[in-house]
C-alpha cells in the first residue's frame, strides 16, 4: 500500500511535468482524495515570485563590498574540531574517536604541566612549536564555557597574533601571513560566538565591548602600519580586517539596539575621518582615500540604521538627534579636506560629502526623544526593558567641544569620555583577566568637529563594567583650526605592546 507521502510527491511531480492533470491524479487515488486534493492544490500554488530578487544596483554594491571583504579574509586554515578528532575513522567508530581524543587531551594536559605547551607560548610562525601554541589555543577555546568567555579568548588570541606580527616585522616579515590569517580567524570567531547568545542585554553589552576592542586594535594596527616601512604590509591588512569586523558588529547591534548602533557607527565615521585628515596632512593620499572609503561604508550603515529604526523601533528621534549633533562637523571636515588635497581627489571627497549630506537630510522628526536605549520590540514599539532616561555620566574633557555631555545607560559602570586627544596615544589591543580597560584618543582634527575619544576602564574587581556614552559639541573655533590636544583618553588596563 503506497503511503500518502509518496502519493503526494509523485502526483506533484507528474502534474508539474505535464504527465497528468490534477483530476487524473486524484482519480488514481480515490481513497486519499480528500486529504490529497487540498495539499496538491496548495503545493502547486507555491511558486517563486519574480519580485523576490536582489535589486541589480544593490547586488553590484554588495558584490563590491563582499570582494573587498574577501580580499582581506583568509580561507579557513584550521580544521573543525570534529574533523581534528575524527582521526580518519568512520562515524561508526565514534567510541574509538572518543578514546583517542581523551588520550591525546591527557597527553596535552600533561605536556602543558611538563612545559612543552608553556614553552610554545613564545613561539612565532615558522617555529617548530608554533603549531602546539595554536592547538593549545584551540583546546582552550573548545573548553571555554560560554560564548562570552570564547569572545574574550578570541580577543586575547587576536592580540597575541598582533604581538607576533610586531616581532616578526623586525625579524622575519615573510612569515607574517600565518599570523595575519590567524588574526582574521580570531576576530571573525567573535561574531559567531555573539550570534549564539540569546540574551539580548548580554549580547548588546558584549557587542559594545567588542566594538571598543576593535577600535583599539584598529588603532594599534594602523599605528604599527604607519611606523612600518613596508607598504600595504601585514598591519595594514589587520587594520582593514578589524574595520570590516567593526561594520559587522554595528550591523549586529543594529538589529535590536539601533540607537547604540548609531552611536558606535558615528564614532567609527569620526574615527575614519580623523585618520583621513591625518593622512591628508601627511600627503599620503592613497591612505586618505582608503579611510574615506571606510567612512563611506559607515555612512551607508548610518542610513540603514536610521531606516531600520523607522521600521522597528521608537528610537528614530534619538538617532536623528545624535546625527544632527555629529554630521555637521563631519561635513565641515570634508569641506576642509577638499581644500587641502590635490584636485584629483576632490571629486571623490565631494561625493562622499554628498552622501553625508543625504544622511543628514534623512532626518525628519524632532529631537525630543533622547532616551530609549533598550532593545527594539516591534510588537509594542517599545523595548521590553523600561525606557531609560539618559543620565549624564561623564563630562567632556576635550577642548574642541563646548558643553559636551556624555550619556550612558544608568546601569553601566562607566562612561566614555569625549574629546579630541593626541593621535599617538598608544592604546593597545588588550584583554586582561580581571580588568578591562582601553582608551583611544583622537585628533588632530582639521575642523572643529565634535571630538570623540574612548575611555573605558573598569573600576570594579570583576572588570565587567562597561559604558557607552557620547560626547558631542559644536566646535567654537574657526574653520581650519587644528586642535591636537586636550582630550582625555583612558588607558587604564590597556597595556602593551
Amino acid at each position: 500500500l503506497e503511503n500518502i507521502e509518496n502519493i503526494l510527491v509523485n502526483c506533484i511531480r507528474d502534474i508539474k511535468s505535464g504527465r497528468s492533470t490534477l483530476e487524473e491524479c486524484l482519480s488514481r487515488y480515490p481513497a486519499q482524495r480528500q486529504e490529497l486534493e487540498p495539499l496538491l492544490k496548495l503545493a502547486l500554488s507555491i511558486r517563486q515570485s519574480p519580485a523576490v530578487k536582489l535589486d541589480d544596483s544593490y547586488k553590484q554594491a554588495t558584490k563590491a563590498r563582499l570582494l573587498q571583504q574577501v580580499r582581506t579574509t583568509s580561507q579557513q586554515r584550521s580544521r573543525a574540531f570534529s574533523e581534528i578528532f575524527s582521526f580518519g575513522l568512520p562515524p561508526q567508530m565514534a567510541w574509538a574517536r572518543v578514546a583517542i581524543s581523551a588520550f591525546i587531551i591527557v597527553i596535552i594536559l600533561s605536556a602543558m604541566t611538563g612545559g612543552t605547551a608553556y614553552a610554545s607560548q613564545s613561539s612565532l610562525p615558522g617555529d617548530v612549536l608554533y603549531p602546539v601554541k595554536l592547538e593549545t589555543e584551540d583546546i582552550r577555546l573548545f573548553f571555554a564555557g560560554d560564548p562570552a568567555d570564547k569572545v574574550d579568548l578570541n580577543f586575547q588570541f587576536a592580540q597575541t597574533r598582533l604581538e607576533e606580527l610586531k616581532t616578526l616585522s623586525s625579524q622575519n616579515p615573510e612569515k607574517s601571513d600565518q599570523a595575519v590569517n590567524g588574526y582574521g580567524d580570531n576576530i571573525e570567531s567573535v561574531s559567531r560566538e555573539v550570534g549564539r547568545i540569546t540574551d539580548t542585554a548580554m549580547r548588546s553589552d558584549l557587542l559594545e565591548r567588542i566594538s571598543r576592542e576593535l577600535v583599539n586594535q584598529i588603532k594599534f594596527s594602523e599605528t604599527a602600519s604607519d611606523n612600518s616601512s613596508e607598504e600595504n604590509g601585514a598591519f595594514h591588512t589587520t587594520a582593514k580586517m578589524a574595520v570590516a569586523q567593526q561594520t559587522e558588529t554595528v550591523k549586529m547591534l543594529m538589529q535590536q539596539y539601533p540607537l547604540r548602533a548609531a552611536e558606535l557607527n558615528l564614532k567609527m565615521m569620526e574615527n575614519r575621518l580623523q585618520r583621513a585628515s591625518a593622512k591628508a596632512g601627511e600627503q599620503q593620499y592613497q591612505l586618505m582615500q582608503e579611510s574615506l572609503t571606510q567612512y563611506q561604508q559607515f555612512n551607508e550603515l548610518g542610513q540603514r540604521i536610521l531606516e531600520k529604526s523607522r521600521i522597528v523601533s521608537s528610537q528614530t528621534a534619538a538617532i536623528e538627534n545624535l546625527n544632527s549633533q555629529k554630521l555637521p562637523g563631519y561635513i565641515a571636515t570634508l569641506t576642509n579636506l577638499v581644500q587641502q588635497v590635490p584636485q584629483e581627489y576632490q571629486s571623490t571627497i565631494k561625493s562622499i560629502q554628498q552622501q553625508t549630506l543625504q544622511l543628514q537630510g534623512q532626518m525628519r522628526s524632532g529631537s525630543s526623544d533622547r532616551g530609549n536605549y533598550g532593545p527594539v520590540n516591534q510588537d509594542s514599539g517599545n523595548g521590553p526593558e523600561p525606557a531609560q532616561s539618559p543620565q549624564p555620566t561623564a563630562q567632556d574633557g576635550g577642548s574642541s567641544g563646548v558643553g559636551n555631555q556624555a550619556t550612558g545607560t544608568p546601569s553601566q559602570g562607566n562612561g566614555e569620555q569625549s574629546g579630541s586627544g593626541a593621535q599617538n596615544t598608544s592604546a593597545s589591543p588588550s584583554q586582561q583577566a580581571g580588568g578591562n580597560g582601553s582608551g583611544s584618543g583622537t585628533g588632530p582634527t582639521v575642523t572643529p568637529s565634535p571630538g570623540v575619544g574612548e575611555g573605558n576602564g573598569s573600576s570594579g574587581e570583576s572588570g565587567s563594567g562597561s559604558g557607552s556614552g557620547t560626547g558631542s559639541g559644536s566646535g567654537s573655533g574657526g574653520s581650519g583650526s587644528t586642535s591636537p590636544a586636550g582630550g582625555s583618553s583612558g588607558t587604564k588596563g590597556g597595556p602593551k605592546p
Partner: protein
Amino acid sequence: LLSPRNNESISGAETESLVDRAVSGDTEAFGRLFDLYADNIYRHIYYRTGNMQDAQDLTQEVFARAWKVLPKYRRTKTPFLGWLFTISRNRVIDYYRTKKDHSYLNNEILQENSESNPEKLIESKFTQHEIRKAILQLPEDQQQAILMSFIEGFDYPEIARTMNKTEGNIRVIIHRGLKKMREILGQAED
C-alpha cells in the same frame, strides 16, 4: 552539480571550475559565483526571514562565510548551491536565535500582482503573500525542504543530501509541511 534555477544557466563543470579557482584564492571567480547564486540565496533567506534588509545582510554574510570555508566544500558531496543553502540555514538559525519578535510578518513581505505570474498552474485561493507568510511559520526543516523543492526546484535526492537526510525523510517532511501550511492558511481564512 546544480545549476541555479531561474538564473542564467551554467553547467556543473563551469561551476566546478569557478569553485576550484575560488578555492585557490581567485576572488574574481568567487565574484562570478556570487553573480550566479546571490539571487537564490537572497530569495531563500527572504522567504525564511520575511525581511528584505535582513535578507540582504544575511546574503552577504553567507557568501563571506562561504569564502572562508570554501576549501572544505570539496569534502562535502552536496551541490554547490545546496552547500550555500546549508550555510544560509545556519545563518538563519542564528538569526532567529537572536531575534524574538515576528511582527514583520505583517508588513514587510512584498505584496505582488498575482496576475503577472506566468507560472500560474492552478487556481489558488491563496495569494503568494499569504503563502509566504505561512511558510515563515513552519518549523525550520519544513521551511527548508519546501523552499528547496517548490521555490528553488531541487529534486528530492538533492534536498536529502543537502539536509543530510534520506529521501524518505524529505517526503515526510514535505507532506507535514504542506499539512501545516494548510492549517495555518485555514486559520487565516477563518
